[in-house]
C-alpha cells in the first residue's frame, strides 16, 4: 500500500470509528432513559465517557485525514461540491454532538449532587434530566448529519 492508500484507509477507519461511536452513544442514550437513580446514571456514564472519546477521535480523524486524502489524490479536491457539503455537514454534526455532551453532563452533575446529599433512591428530577429532549434532539441532529455525510460520500453527487 502506498502512502496515499494508508491515509485513505486511516480516513475510512476513523469514519467507521465515528459512526460506531454514534451507535454506541445511542445505546447509552436509550439506556439512560430508564435510569432513575444516581447509581444507574453514574454507571451508564462510565460507558458514555468511552463513547465520547470514540466520537471525538472519529470527528477529528475523519476531517483531518479526509482533507489530507483529497489533497493527495489528484482526482479529488476539497472544493468539489460533494466535499464542501460533507465538510459543512461535519461542522453541523460536530457542533450538535459537542452541545449534546453539555446536555448529558447535567444528569451526571445531578447524580453526584444527590449522592453527596445521601440520596440514592429514584429521583424525578434526575429522570427528567436523563430524558432530556434537548440532548436527544441534538444527538438526533448530529446523527442525521453523519448519515447524510455517509450518503454524500458514497453517491458523490456531481462527481
Amino acid at each position, binding site marked *: *500500500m*502506498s502512502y*496515499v*492508500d*494508508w491515509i*485513505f*484507509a486511516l*480516513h*475510512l*477507519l476513523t*469514519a*467507521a*470509528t465515528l*459512526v*460506531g*461511536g*454514534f*451507535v*454506541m452513544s445511542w*445505546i*447509552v442514550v436509550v*439506556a439512560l432513559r430508564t*435510569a432513575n437513580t444516581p447509581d*444507574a446514571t453514574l*454507571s*451508564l456514564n*462510565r*460507558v458514555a465517557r*468511552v*463513547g465520547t472519546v*470514540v466520537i471525538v477521535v472519529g470527528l477529528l480523524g475523519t476531517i483531518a485525514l*479526509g482533507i489530507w*486524502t*483529497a489533497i493527495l*489524490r*489528484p*482526482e*479529488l479536491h476539497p472544493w468539489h461540491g460533494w*466535499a464542501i457539503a460533507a465538510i459543512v455537514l461535519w461542522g453541523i454534526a460536530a457542533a450538535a454532538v459537542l452541545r449534546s455532551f453539555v446536555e448529558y453532563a447535567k444528569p451526571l452533575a445531578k447524580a453526584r449532587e444527590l449522592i453527596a446529599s445521601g440520596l440514592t433512591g429514584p429521583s424525578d428530577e434526575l429522570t427528567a434530566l436523563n430524558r432530556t429532549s434537548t440532548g436527544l434532539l441534538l444527538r438526533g441532529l448530529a446523527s442525521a448529519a453523519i448519515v447524510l455525510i*455517509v*450518503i454524500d*460520500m*458514497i*453517491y*458523490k453527487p456531481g*462527481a
Partner: protein
Amino acid sequence: MLAAIRPAGQDFPVLLHIVGATIVFGALLASATSLALARGEIRLLRLGYFSLLFVALPGMALMWGAGQWIYHKQGWNKLPSNVKDVDWLTIGFVVGDYGGLFFIAALIVGGIGILRLRNGKSDGGLLKLTMVMALVLAVAYVVAVWAMTGKPTGASAAPAPGPGANAPTTTAVSVAATEFRFTLSKQSVPHGKVVFTLSNKGKIPHDFSIDGKTSTIVSPGKTTTLTVRLGAGKFLYLCTVPGHAQAGMKGTLIVR
C-alpha cells in the same frame, strides 16, 4: 472520502453494507465497554449483552446480506474456478463468515451468562468471556475495514532498478478503455512516477490496475487518474472487473 466512484446501481448496496458494518462495530464497542466497566452491576452486564443481541445482530445481518448483494452485482461469483478471490475480499469473507460464527458463539456464551444472572447465580465469568469475544471481533472489524479500503495485494515481482539507472522521472500515460481492450499512449516508459489517465470510451464500467495498484472504476465517458511508482521491468496491466482481463483487457508495460 468514503468510497471510490463506482458504477451506478452499486451505491445502494454499498451504503447498506457500510451502515451494517458500522452498526456492528459500534454495538461491539458498546458491548465490550459495558461488560468491561460493569464491575458486577447487572444493569451494565445486561446492557452489554443486549447491545450484542438487539443492535449488533441486525447490523451483522444487514452487512452480510448487502455484502453478498455487492459480490453478485460485481460478478465476483462468476470468476473462473482457477482464479482466486483477491486478498482484500478473502479478508472480508474471513471476518464476515468466520467472524459471524464467532459472534453467534459470543451470543450463546453471553446468553447463558445472562440466564445464570437471572437465576441468581452471580457468575460474571461467562459475560467476561463475552466481553473478550466482542473485543476480538471489534479488532477483526478494524482489520476488515482496513482491507476493504486499502485493498492490499501481494508484492510485485518486478525487479528493482539497477545501480546504473537514471534518476526517476514522472511520465504521463493516457489509457483509453473500450470493450475489451486498452490503448496506451506509450508502451514503454522510464522508471519513476507514472501518472495513468484512464478514459472510459466504452459502454460499460472499467478500471485500470498495474503493480498491485488499481484505479477507481470509471463509468462510460468518465476519466480518472492512477499514480504509481514503477521500477525497471515488465509490468502486467489489466482491468480487474471480473471477466474483462480474460476478454482482452490486459497487456504489458515496459519500464526502462
